[in-house]
């Protein structure tokens, strides 16, 4: 990854930590105050360091200034004082001094608790990802806007609504009770997986940003693994899945930034270290009785990391997709199952199965049919691919299909 400049680098690493701690201290209803306070601290840093030079330990400087800002704020704002401070002061009544704990342990805990708060099922998924990027990953509004291919105003509005929703639902920044933790972790995993996919499949052409999104999703998942009570089998399964997918990062785009299909990838570019890490997490996930969809998806992803093209691989993949669809239906899993079926039982049978899927609005459906009809009925293949082109929004994807049509016509 390219080396970022001082402030952007610190912003990415420290913003989320300080924000989580302050927000935990103030409560979710004051999330904006916490956020503004930390933003303000960075602006002060820029001006002060510009005037007097950069301190030896810039992160520690930020912590101290943010702490003082928070203390000063708590003292100054009477309204806030009456509402919030009594509790905070009560807990530290002996010293009569508000303590703001920016120790590694408290930072870690606050971030995890924040993660549970943001990944609340009451918040729309798109907003969850936006909030996660902002609050848990310290992304600037502009970066989030680029990731979502939209403008700053839209993101600001979306985040505002999400925060209002958090307040309305009175979401607490705390660890869920032991009994609920499994349930709540599922919500968190859903968001983290969405975040990962946003990077992996996003239509933004900013390769560095896409990789960043994936790495952030992995970093947040790793935080759950590091914590004893959240180190559950499905979490390890998701981590494994992410490692397997991420292993193909270099191979799945060409130097021009265009997508390279799985079958056409240079397997030497697959990251073997990530693949073996994925295997380690997959083994760790294999405890307990629960077989989550992440277990199955990780197992499928594992098979995709093997260069073996034999029928055995595709039989395994087909079985896994069958299981996955039983646990949770999704159009993409249905399409992938059909593809695996074609590899095992041939295209004719797969076409029959595909016709049953009824996914008329999905360009991937027509792309699959196009592939299945190729060499069987090229005319039908072209018709289907043309139908796909009509439905595709991303220019890069469109180009891929147009190339296929060209090959078939030529």
């Amino acid at each position, binding site marked *: 990854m390219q080396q970022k*400049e001082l402030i952007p680098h610190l*912003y990415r690493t420290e913003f989320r930590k300080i924000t989580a701690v302050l927000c935990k201290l103030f409560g979710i209803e004051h999330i904006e105050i916490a956020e503004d306070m930390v933003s303000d601290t960075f602006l*002060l*840093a*820029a001006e002060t*360091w*510009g005037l*007097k030079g950069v301190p030896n330990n810039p992160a520690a400087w930020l912590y101290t200034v943010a702490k003082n800002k928070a203390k000063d704020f708590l003292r100054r704002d009477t309204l806030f004082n009456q509402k919030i401070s009594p509790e905070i002061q009560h807990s530290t009544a002996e010293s009569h001094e508000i303590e703001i704990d920016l120790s590694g342990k408290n930072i870690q805990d606050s971030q995890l608790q924040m993660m549970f708060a943001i990944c609340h099922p009451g918040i729309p998924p798109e907003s969850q990802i936006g909030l996660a990027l902002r609050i848990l990953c310290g992304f600037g509004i*502009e970066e989030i806007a680029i990731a979502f291919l939209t403008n700053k105003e839209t993101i600001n509005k979306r985040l505002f609504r999400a925060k209002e929703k958090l307040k309305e639902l009175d979401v607490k920044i705390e660890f869920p009770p032991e009994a609920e933790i499994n349930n709540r972790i599922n919500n968190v995993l859903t968001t983290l997986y969405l975040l990962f996919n946003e990077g992996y499949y996003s239509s933004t052409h900013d390769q560095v940003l896409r990789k960043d999104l994936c790495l952030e999703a992995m970093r947040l998942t790793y935080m759950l693994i590091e914590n004893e009570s959240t180190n559950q089998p499905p979490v390890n399964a998701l981590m494994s899945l992410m490692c397997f997918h991420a292993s193909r990062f270099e191979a799945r785009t060409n130097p021009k930034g265009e997508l390279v299909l799985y079958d056409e990838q240079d397997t030497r570019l697959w990251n073997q270290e990530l693949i073996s890490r994925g295997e380690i997490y997959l083994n760790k996930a294999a405890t307990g009785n629960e077989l989550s969809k992440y277990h199955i998806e990780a197992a499928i992803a594992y098979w995709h990391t093997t260069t073996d093209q034999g029928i055995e691989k595709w039989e395994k993949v087909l079985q896994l997709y069958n299981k996955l669809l039983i646990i949770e239906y999704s159009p993409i899993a249905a399409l992938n199952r059909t593809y695996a079926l074609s590899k095992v039982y041939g295209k004719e049978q797969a076409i029959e199965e595909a016709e049953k899927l009824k996914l008329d609005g999905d360009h991937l459906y027509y792309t699959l049919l196009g592939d299945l009809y190729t060499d069987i009925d090229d005319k039908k293949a072209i018709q289907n691919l043309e139908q796909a082109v009509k439905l595709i929004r991303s220019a890069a994807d469109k180009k891929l299909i147009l190339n296929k049509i060209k090959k078939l016509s030529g």
Partner: protein
Amino acid sequence: MKEFVMIYRNEAMPEAKYSPDEMQNILKQWENWMGSIAAQGKLVNQGNRLGSEGKSIKPGMIITNGPYAEIKEMIGGYTIIRADSIDDAVEIAKGCPILHVGGNVEVRDIILMDR
């Protein structure tokens, strides 16, 4: 050559939000501006950036807590420079990065003390 103080003022609670890259740019602008004053041999003391902690006091009593006394604006910091005249000092002040973020600079001559 005489000495002047440049007093930086800005909104106490700036509305504008800056991206990390923009803030990096602000840092660079200040560094470069300080460097340029120093390169002209006109920097006496880079002064201080003031904290948000503040109080206003009249003899015997505290009138306000916090620096935001009676105006929205607050003093953010100051720097001492050397210049031929106040107009020369004003020319230097025109390069201050705070002007790009809605702030202003008060330029004042310093009464040199014989003590």
